[in-house]
């Protein structure tokens, strides 16, 4: 992310709507960032912190009050952020990121330290921001949160891109996806699936059949006269997919007690 913003030196080029960032007169209207929650002077008030960013970015002070209101920090705007909790610091960081109404947001672990209400607020806020035609690029290890928030996902392991696709496609193409089925005669169902060359595993009181569709299983069971007690699509969670994709790329693996 720092490379994308020109903060670190390295190879490669990042372009925003066809132009690198330094070609824009007002970069803060192109990209807003949150790379570190605690990137502020501890005794400078939250309002003054934002006013400095506003002045540097050619943004009016009125906008500072707007963003303080959006992130819910208006009541503590006079205070130095030294005693801010991690969640409050994240909110201040988000306020700084959206100050210039940028077309793109680049956020590193924005949900870190937020309480459940804060996480929901962030999710709704970012979805709304993206729905307005903006791009939101989030780096996170909170996979369940990402599965609720993101449209597209990039999986990186050991510095290499492993996947770059929509979440829907990613979870549906994964080996963990398939059909969950339950019948009154599970023994007969297993024989039927084996005859049809389908792989499956026992899950709860039913079977998870891999790489198939509900129509196919339904027809098979109907033809064989088996009663269907439950039949549903099973999509793998983003976490399951992530672990499967990065199985060979994990740097530090924990052991068992």
């Amino acid at each position: 992310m720092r490379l994308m913003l020109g903060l670190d030196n390295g190879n490669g080029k990042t372009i925003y709507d066809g132009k690198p960032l330094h070609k824009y007169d007002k970069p803060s209207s192109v990209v807003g960032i949150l790379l570190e929650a605690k990137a502020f002077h501890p005794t400078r008030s939250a309002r003054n912190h934002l006013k400095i960013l506003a002045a540097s970015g050619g943004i009016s002070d009125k906008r500072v009050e707007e963003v303080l209101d959006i992130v819910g920090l208006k009541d503590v705007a006079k205070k130095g952020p030294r005693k801010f909790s991690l969640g409050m610091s994240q909110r201040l960081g988000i306020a700084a990121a959206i100050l210039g109404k940028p077309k793109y947001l680049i956020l590193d672990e924005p949900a870190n330290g937020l309480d459940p209400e804060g996480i929901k607020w962030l999710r709704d806020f970012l979805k709304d921001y993206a729905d307005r035609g903006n791009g939101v690029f989030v780096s996170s290890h909170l996979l369940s949160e990402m599965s609720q928030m993101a449209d597209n996902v990039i999986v990186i392991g050991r510095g290499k891109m492993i996947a770059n696709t929509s979440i829907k496609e990613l979870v549906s193409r994964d080996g963990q996806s398939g059909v969950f089925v339950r019948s009154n005669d599970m023994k007969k169902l297993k024989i039927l699936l084996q005859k049809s060359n389908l792989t499956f595993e026992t899950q709860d009181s039913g079977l998870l059949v891999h790489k198939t569709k509900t129509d196919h299983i339904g027809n098979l069971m109907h033809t064989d006269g088996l009663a269907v007690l439950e039949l549903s699509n099973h999509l793998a969670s983003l976490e399951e997919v992530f672990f499967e994709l990065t199985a060979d790329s994990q740097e530090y693996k924990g052991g068992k007690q």
Partner: protein
Amino acid sequence: MKATMKGEFRKLFTVRSTYILIILAALLIVLVNFYFEGYRGITGSPASILSPDALKEIINNSAGLIAIFIAIIAILFIGHEYRYNTIMYTLISNTHRARVLLAKVFTVAVFSFITGLILTLFAIGCYFVGLELRGASLPPQNLDELYQFGKLTAYFVGYGLIGLLISTLLRSVIAAIAVFLIAPATIEPLASIPLKENAVYLPFSSLDNILNIGIIKSDVSPATSILVVGAYLLVGFVIAYLLFLRRDAN
């Protein structure tokens, strides 16, 4: 560029340290100029024996004290940006690093000039109040006001910029303050042993020679010293700029 400079000025005036250091400088001025020099009068002090150079001595000595605080403010100005990583916001707001550095140089120069002169006027005022309370008055003074104003301007701006330069190069508040305090008090006097009279061309000695208040005494003119300081700053900031470009912003 204008927006960047506005942001830089706001940075200076929205932190407590700027005000604390200015107040500390003012308190020391009150103690020295009002109490010791003006009100009590120190035996042996050129100012206290009411010589024709008393006022010049008071101004120069006060400037020496004020400059230290100005330089520390300049060190904190950029040092804190690296310490708290707000430098990344600065470099996103303006992606041209040359302009960012130029805005910082301009901000520190203007701040040093104005703060230095205000505190100098305060120092003179304190001295006169002390004299008044003592019931003493100054004899006619040898003071070319315009010449003194020019020298003070160069001196304060020079100190402010040297603080900024050290901090930009080292990117650490503690290291920069250490170098700033150790170099003029220890390194340059030691360097004067092998360098002899040429030691006056060292950075801090040149700066102090503008007002003729340095440890190393010399006949080198203030104008020459201003040129020497200017050359040091120019070369220093070219190096600082090249490092600013090459280094990662953290």
